[in-house]
């Protein structure tokens, strides 16, 4: 069916602030949806209160409301703007819950607003555990033994019947909030109590644990004509028991036979049809590794985090197509925007593997419980594309920006095998590195399989990587043959890793590799594995086969992205880099984006002129620079991730546009920064730098307590501590994580804190606004509430600030 002409104005609900389980992917989905609707000539009204998003730019909607996402506020907006359609399935759980509440309160009916896409009934059936289970019984799809409870007593009665372990899943919560697996009565009680509290309708599903089964997800789309397609399937390396947002995921599935694949695919299509969804949907299955028995774990009747991943992994723009389905189109009427010659009613073919690796906040929150379970703890994720699973894992690990060299996490290096077994049992975020370390120390894959139920296919791939590590260690750089080095690169070993093993510099490995004529080639993500001609400029590097990338001789600029979302480095940098891209495009400069975060707008292949999905390390960035013949690079929009690359790039002779590395260093290096301030006669907090313990004590005394300790070059105040006396300093030096020198020591002044954002072209400075913090200095600016414009600063103080800039 063609589009619905009875509608002119569409209200789109965004997903609000970033929370664990609902991050940048909904900015990506929302932006795509708004653009798709505008492309069809609709007037788009957007409600969202997250300023760090691209969707809230006025170019993406006709009217943007920065208002709280509540029913009352939405009713006011609806009565003012009089939309005739509402699109709520692209705003995550927040959008979905609001649509549900608006319908419940009769507001949609009152103002004659048509809910577009998936009907309310389908949303209810997908989200309400009880309705969903009833429907699955009706159509004969298996769900694990379970029951719905509203009280603790009901839960205890069920536990009596089926025994432990039991999974607790609260209804209508995000990323499994409040859920978990209980092995004992005590944890069970605790989980049920918490879960009932978390659930807005005081309802929990408790079910028999199927831990150990393979966890497989399907991304499915359906139009009003009941055409159903699966965009891709994804397999979690971790078996059922760890939230999919915390699992390492590979697309397409690696260990299913065609029979199993088609069985689950057919079940997905049956389910999406029975639910009556119009748009995208994510379905999770548990598959018994030893039989064909499977269970449904969950259905998300909306675009989800996995949809963003599936879009980036396949090149198929799910959110954009879902928005068009919502206004009435059929899949077979929509052109595939990637090939521009075929239709959207097809299933993408992948001639590569995509590996997703979560990024956890435990480097910031060192005392948090690192055990993973049914409740998501990751703040972000990276994706890596490669021709082999092994290469994909390596690229993903390189993209995480952890303290790793190759596949080795430095903190695990000196652990003994029994210690590692203990670590493995903790099921923490580090377990994959624990497995690597165990393999290095001679533990067999059989033993690891026994303990983790991770499929042998994955464990064998890990073991083969560790085997290669040993071969590499037995060589020296001048002994390695071309064939051997080629093999190592095909398996994804980085120059940096090879350099660390062979005790040479990374640049020596790079030079040697190039002298042997081993360079990265670039493949294209085109949704169809080259079956049709495609128009994407979406690439990834590998060392297999021929180069598919074509370079242009236009004026071009490389934009370095900010990698995975973590505390202190969120989507605001995505906002910056995307706007950087738009501004350059306006100036007719060709833009090339390099990034590895699958959730973002910057990695939408429709954003920059060309997209490279790569780790943000010097090697991968230089490879792109050389392959594209790039002269100019912008690092200032990519957060600390990109800043950390500045030095290496400049040393290699790359021109950094805008601020140079020297200036960045002058600001980041406290000593140099203070020298600069003194030169400019600007008062600064008394502070100095200490290179060792004695110096630290002496300098702290000289400055006077309380003092603030921090390392150089960090994001979001990582490792920053306030020390109030000499005793606590001594205590701090003796306990906790080791201090990394040099350490910066500042006098800690609990005064008012204000920030100025400004822009300068070298001569003139423009100050758009001054922000004033409500909390006193010492609360990180990212954690404090701020008022714009500043309320309590006198004009005199403001004027004093101006010339300082």
């Amino acid at each position: 069916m063609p589009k619905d002409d009875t509608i002119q104005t569409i209200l789109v609900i965004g997903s609000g602030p970033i929370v664990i389980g609902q991050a940048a992917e909904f900015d990506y989905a929302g932006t795509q949806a708004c653009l798709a609707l505008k492309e069809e000539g609709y007037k788009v009204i957007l409600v969202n209160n997250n300023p760090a998003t691209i969707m809230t730019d006025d170019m993406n909607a006709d009217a943007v409301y920065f208002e709280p996402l509540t029913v009352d506020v939405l009713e006011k907006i609806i009565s003012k703007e009089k939309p005739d359609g509402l699109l709520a399935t692209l705003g995550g759980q927040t959008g979905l819950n609001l649509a549900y509440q608006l319908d419940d309160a009769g507001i949609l009916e009152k103002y004659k607003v048509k809910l577009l896409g998936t009907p309310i009934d389908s949303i209810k059936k997908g989200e309400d555990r009880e309705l969903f289970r009833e429907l699955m019984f009706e159509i004969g799809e298996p769900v694990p033994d379970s029951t719905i409870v509203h009280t603790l007593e009901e839960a205890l009665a069920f536990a009596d019947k089926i025994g432990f372990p039991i999974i607790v899943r609260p209804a209508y919560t995000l990323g499994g909030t409040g859920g978990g697996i209980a092995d004992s009565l005590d944890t069970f009680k605790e989980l049920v109590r918490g879960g009932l509290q978390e659930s807005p309708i005081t309802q929990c599903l408790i079910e028999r644990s199927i831990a150990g089964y393979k966890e497989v997800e399907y991304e499915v789309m359906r139009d009003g004509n009941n055409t159903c397609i699966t965009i891709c399937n994804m397999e979690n390396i971790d078996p059922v028991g760890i939230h999919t947002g915390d699992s390492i995921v590979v697309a397409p599935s690696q260990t299913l036979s065609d029979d199993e694949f088609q069985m689950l695919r057919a079940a997905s299509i049956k389910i999406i049809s029975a639910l009556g969804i119009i748009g995208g949907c994510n379905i999770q299955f548990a598959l018994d590794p030893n039989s064909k028995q499977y269970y449904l774990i969950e259905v998300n009747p909306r675009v989800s985090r996995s949809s963003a991943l599936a879009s980036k992994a396949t090149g198929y723009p799910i959110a954009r197509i879902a928005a068009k389905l919502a206004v009435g189109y059929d899949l077979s009427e929509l052109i595939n925007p990637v090939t521009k010659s075929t239709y959207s009613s097809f299933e993408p073919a992948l001639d590569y593997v995509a590996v997703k690796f979560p990024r956890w906040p435990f480097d910031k929150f060192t005392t948090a419980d690192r055990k993973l379970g049914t409740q998501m703890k990751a703040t972000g994720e990276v994706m890596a594309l490669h021709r082999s699973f092994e290469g994909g894992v390596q690229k993903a690990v390189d993209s995480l920006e952890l303290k790793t060299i190759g596949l080795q996490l430095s903190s695990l290096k000196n652990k003994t095998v029994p210690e590692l077994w203990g670590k493995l049992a903790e099921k923490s975020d580090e377990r994959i590195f624990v497995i690597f370390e165990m393999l290095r120390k001679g533990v067999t894959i059989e033993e690891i399989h026994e303990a983790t139920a991770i499929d042998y296919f994955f464990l064998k791939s890990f073991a083969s990587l560790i085997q290669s590590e040993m071969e590499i260690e037995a060589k020296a750089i001048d002994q390695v043959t071309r064939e051997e080095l080629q093999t190592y690169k095909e398996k994804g070993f980085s120059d940096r890793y090879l350099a660390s093993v062979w005790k040479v510099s990374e640049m020596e490995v790079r030079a040697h590799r190039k002298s042997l004529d081993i360079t990265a080639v670039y493949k294209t993500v085109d949704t169809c594995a080259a079956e049709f001609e495609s128009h994407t400029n979406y690439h990834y590097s590998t060392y297999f086969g021929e180069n598919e990338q074509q370079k242009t001789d236009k004026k071009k600029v490389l934009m370095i992205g900010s990698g995975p979302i973590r505390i202190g480095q969120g989507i605001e940098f995505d906002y910056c880099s995307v706007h950087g891209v738009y501004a350059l495009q306006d100036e007719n400069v060709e833009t090339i984006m390099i990034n590895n975060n699958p959730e973002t707008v910057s990695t939408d292949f429709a954003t920059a002129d060309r997209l490279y999905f790569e780790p943000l390390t010097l090697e991968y960035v230089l490879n792109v620079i050389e392959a594209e013949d790039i002269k100019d690079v912008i690092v200032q929009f990519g957060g600390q991730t990109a800043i950390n690359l500045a030095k290496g790039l400049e040393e290699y002779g790359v021109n950094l546009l805008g601020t140079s590395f020297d200036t960045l260093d002058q600001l980041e290096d406290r000593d140099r920064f203070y020298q600069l301030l003194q030169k400019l006669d600007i008062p600064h907090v008394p502070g100095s730098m200490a290179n060792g313990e004695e110096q630290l004590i002496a300098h702290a005394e000289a400055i006077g307590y309380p003092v603030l300790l921090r390392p150089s070059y960090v994001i979001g105040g990582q490792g920053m501590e306030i020390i109030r006396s000499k005793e606590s300093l001594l205590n701090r030096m003796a306990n906790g994580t080791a201090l990394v020198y040099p350490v910066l020591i500042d006098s800690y002044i609990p005064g008012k804190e204000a920030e100025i954002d400004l822009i300068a072209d070298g001569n003139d400075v423009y100050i758009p606004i001054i922000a004033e913090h409500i909390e006193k200095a010492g609360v990180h600016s990212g954690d404090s509430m701020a008022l714009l414009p500043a309320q309590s600063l006198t004009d005199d103080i403001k004027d004093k600030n101006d010339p300082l800039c």
Partner: protein
Amino acid sequence: MLFGHRGANQPVVDLKTKKVYMSSQNHSYEVDEPSLQGTSLQVRFRNVNDDTVEGLMHEDLPIFTTQYHPEANPGPIESSLLFNDFLQMINDYSGREKAYA
């Protein structure tokens, strides 16, 4: 055909039901549509991507054809419904009561 149709992700539309579904295909030749003129054969299935003929049906006789693989091994199993159609046809046109009834 230049490259033919290959793979388990080929979209086919059944003109009888207007449904679109995935099919498993592996063919290098296609039915030349003008050649159907003057026969009692009609196009029933088409490939959505390039509009080529993927199957025919007869106007009067219990005959239908596919150019692709409805048995789908490997491949998506949506077109298994065609086997039900086929069995139904056998029952409808057998011209006698069920032999073993």
